[in-house]
């Protein structure tokens, strides 16, 4: 059976991290499962975790009064999501809703923040990795804003 440590070591997001760093991170990780329709987090709530999606599909929603939830992006297995835990005031900016039964690794933000503060090298490494994910998402959103199918 694959352990959390093995899973993180093999995940592209953590690729190349020394084993003792992975050990540190595993101390803040746990497996979670969400049923279809479950709300993983809501806009404005405290961002206490981030997630590595192992299986399933999650919608990132914006709630619009009168229109309900508008999905602006979906995330699938292998993707990392949730970066509000990195930036004060550590609150979610969007809703995350499960659209297919989802299994994920949840990383405890409080635990991580403490460890990263006491180990700036690992902190820098994690910020670099998140910056890459954030850049990819930002680029995708920019292309989406171009309304590329309209012409």
């Amino acid at each position, binding site marked *: 059976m694959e352990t959390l440590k093995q899973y993180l070591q093999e995940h592209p997001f953590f690729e190349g991290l020394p084993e003792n760093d992975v050990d540190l991170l595993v101390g803040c990780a746990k497996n979670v499962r969400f049923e279809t329709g479950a709300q993983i987090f809501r806009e404005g709530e405290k961002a206490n975790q981030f997630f590595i999606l192992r299986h399933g*599909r999650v*919608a*990132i929603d914006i709630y619009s009064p009168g*229109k*309900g*939830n*508008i*999905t*602006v*992006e*979906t995330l*699938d297995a*292998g993707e990392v999501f949730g970066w509000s835990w990195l930036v004060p005031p550590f609150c979610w900016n969007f809703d995350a809703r499960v*659209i*297919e039964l989802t299994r994920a690794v949840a990383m405890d933000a409080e635990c991580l923040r403490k460890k990263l503060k006491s180990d700036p090298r690992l902190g820098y490494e994690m910020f670099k990795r998140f910056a890459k994910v954030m850049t990819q998402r930002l680029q*995708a959103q920019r*292309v*989406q804003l*171009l*309304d*590329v*199918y*309209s*012409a």
Partner: protein
Amino acid sequence: MNTDPMVPDLFRVQKVRKETLDTFTLELSPKQKKFRFEPGQFNMLYVSGAGEIPISISGNPNQPESLIHTTRAVGSVTNAMRKLKAGDYLGVRGPFGTKWPVDKAMGDDVVIITGGIGLAPLRPAVYDILAKRGRYGNVVLLYGARTPEDILYPKEIMGWRSRFDMDVHVTVDRAAGSWHSNVGVVTKLIPKAPFDPQNTTAFICGPEVMIRFTTQELKKRGLSDDKIYVSMERNMKCAIGFCGHCQLGPYFVCKDGPVFRYDEIKRLLEIREV
């Protein structure tokens, strides 16, 4: 059929079908029994009193008994076309232009990437490939639309999706309510699409900005420029390479295109003003 390529033949409208809020399909019956064309080619459609415009053929090349065009109502000619009824006539010149290299792609995986109305010019290629399905590796369709309501040919896409020998992935830019599939730009589907980059031919149809980002993603997967084909759009008028309205560098899109191998026109797409 007329032998002068500048003189249209009259075709009778069999059916006008609304596809989405702003797109519709015209089913025409050829004067002669059959209208032969290759996937990717276009016709010049002439509405009396309104004008003539190029429209890609979107029907099945293996069923030449009816001629099918899907287009978006955006200007005076297409708006006049939308008002046509069964029994009306319109002028047709064609078919013109180059084809999707469906024969050359045999033996390869084929990945078809398109968005919005761009599915219409690629549908004949999908029909043709599926008619000779055994001669290809994986067949993948990646399709993007603005919203679920803007998806073209939804029933047909569902039919393709239910096949065991075709991978179909659809994404929209935004969705509300009951949509449970992908949300995001079509290029986001490329990294996980099931094809072997060393043995894949890609067909792309969409606005140039979509072509740009799509080719970037395909290249990240390892596809070479000479295995990517794109359909270009320009202001085509004569359709036979005389008038020069559709000139793109050294090419006339109507005659040398609309389907080009990407390495042949890549340089032209990188220039801000051609």
